[in-house]
């Protein structure tokens, strides 16, 4: 019997409490689980199902519902399946124990998410500044970080020679009004 991603999901569902699962496309499936289950699922994937590597850790900010969605993407070089294991964490002050012990490169991915979203990963040995130097304030990749406002506050954009920009719809309306006025006058 050939291995299918449905069988795989079924096996995981038997062993763990999965809150939701879907097959996105051929070879890509997503699993939702709680934060407590995360390490168990990942270790199961690595040790039993032979998922060799962690491709990346995705993070998306759902500010409307007030959570971050972390997706751990495990990849198998034999079946070419990717399983996204998704957990939800609260937007402020959340902490997820590191998965560095399972896959070492997770250290780098977590370091980036820590800097860009402010999620804490206790146990990570390298959780220090990464891309940004002496960054103070809100982590920049959060949805409520306003980058245009930040640019206006910190840098100066060159304005010389760029004066006199007009709004197209306003100008068009002005011209139409002027035309109407002219026609009215002619009519009189």
């Amino acid at each position, binding site marked *: 019997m050939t291995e299918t991603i449905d069988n795989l999901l079924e096996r995981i569902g038997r062993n763990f409490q999965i809150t939701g699962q879907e097959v996105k496309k051929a070879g890509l499936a997503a699993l939702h689980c709680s934060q407590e289950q995360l390490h168990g699922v990942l270790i199961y994937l690595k040790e039993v199902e032979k998922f060799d590597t962690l491709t990346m850790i995705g993070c998306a900010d759902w500010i409307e519902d007030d959570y971050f969605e972390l997706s751990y993407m495990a990849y198998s070089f034999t079946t070419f399946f990717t399983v996204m294991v998704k957990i939800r964490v609260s937007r402020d002050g959340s902490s997820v124990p590191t998965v560095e012990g399972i896959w070492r490169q997770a250290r780098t991915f977590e370091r980036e998410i820590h800097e860009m979203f402010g999620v804490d990963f206790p146990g990570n040995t390298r959780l220090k500044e990464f*891309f*940004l*130097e*002496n960054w103070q304030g809100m982590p*920049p990749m959060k949805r409520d*970080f306003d*980058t*245009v406002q*930040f*640019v206006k506050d*910190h*840098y*100066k*954009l*060159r304005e010389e020679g760029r004066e006199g920009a007009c709004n197209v719809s306003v100008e068009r309306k002005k011209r139409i009004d002027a035309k109407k006025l002219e026609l009215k006058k002619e009519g009189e």
Partner: protein
Amino acid sequence: MDNLNKKDKAQLKELKSPMAVVDWAVNWFRKQSIFMLAYGTGCGAIEIPPTVTARYDAERFGVRGAATPRQADVIVLSGYLAVKTLKRVIRTYEQMQEPKYVIALGSCPINGGMYWDSYNTIKQLDRYLPVDVTVAGCMPRPEAVLEGFMALKDKIQRGEAEGARDYRDNIEKYKNNQKEIFGDKMLPGYTCDWYFSDGGSF
């Protein structure tokens, strides 16, 4: 002299005093050999190899790479500068020996370019360093980069490539602009000890 072209000869004829001739000659020699420190700060770094290698061969114009900032005449800043890079670039620039020049490539050093709304790149390079020649493009083709070098040579010959003097004269202005983005994490004073005679502290 084969290397003296028409323009040079015409300029030479107009000079009156012997001192002017000496100045002219100094500039002429300076412009013949330009050692370049290609600080690949951004995308523009990718058009530097074609410029200096066989296809466009910048060495025909006396432009070649320098190993260290101390040996370089011109620093080529090719593209956007992240704040972290700018700090290193300023330090590199201050280490260079005078006469020194700056060439900026691409849109980003002029007005932010496509990264105008990025939180981590600077928008106007000439606020922080004196720029002698700017080449527009994203990225400038090797031909445009060569034109940039020719414009720089022109400027040197006219004796107007005084970016380094401008930097020294207006050091307060430049340092204040730099302080705006670096805050209290300014560069150590020793990188421009001619300014901080007391050893330097910000």
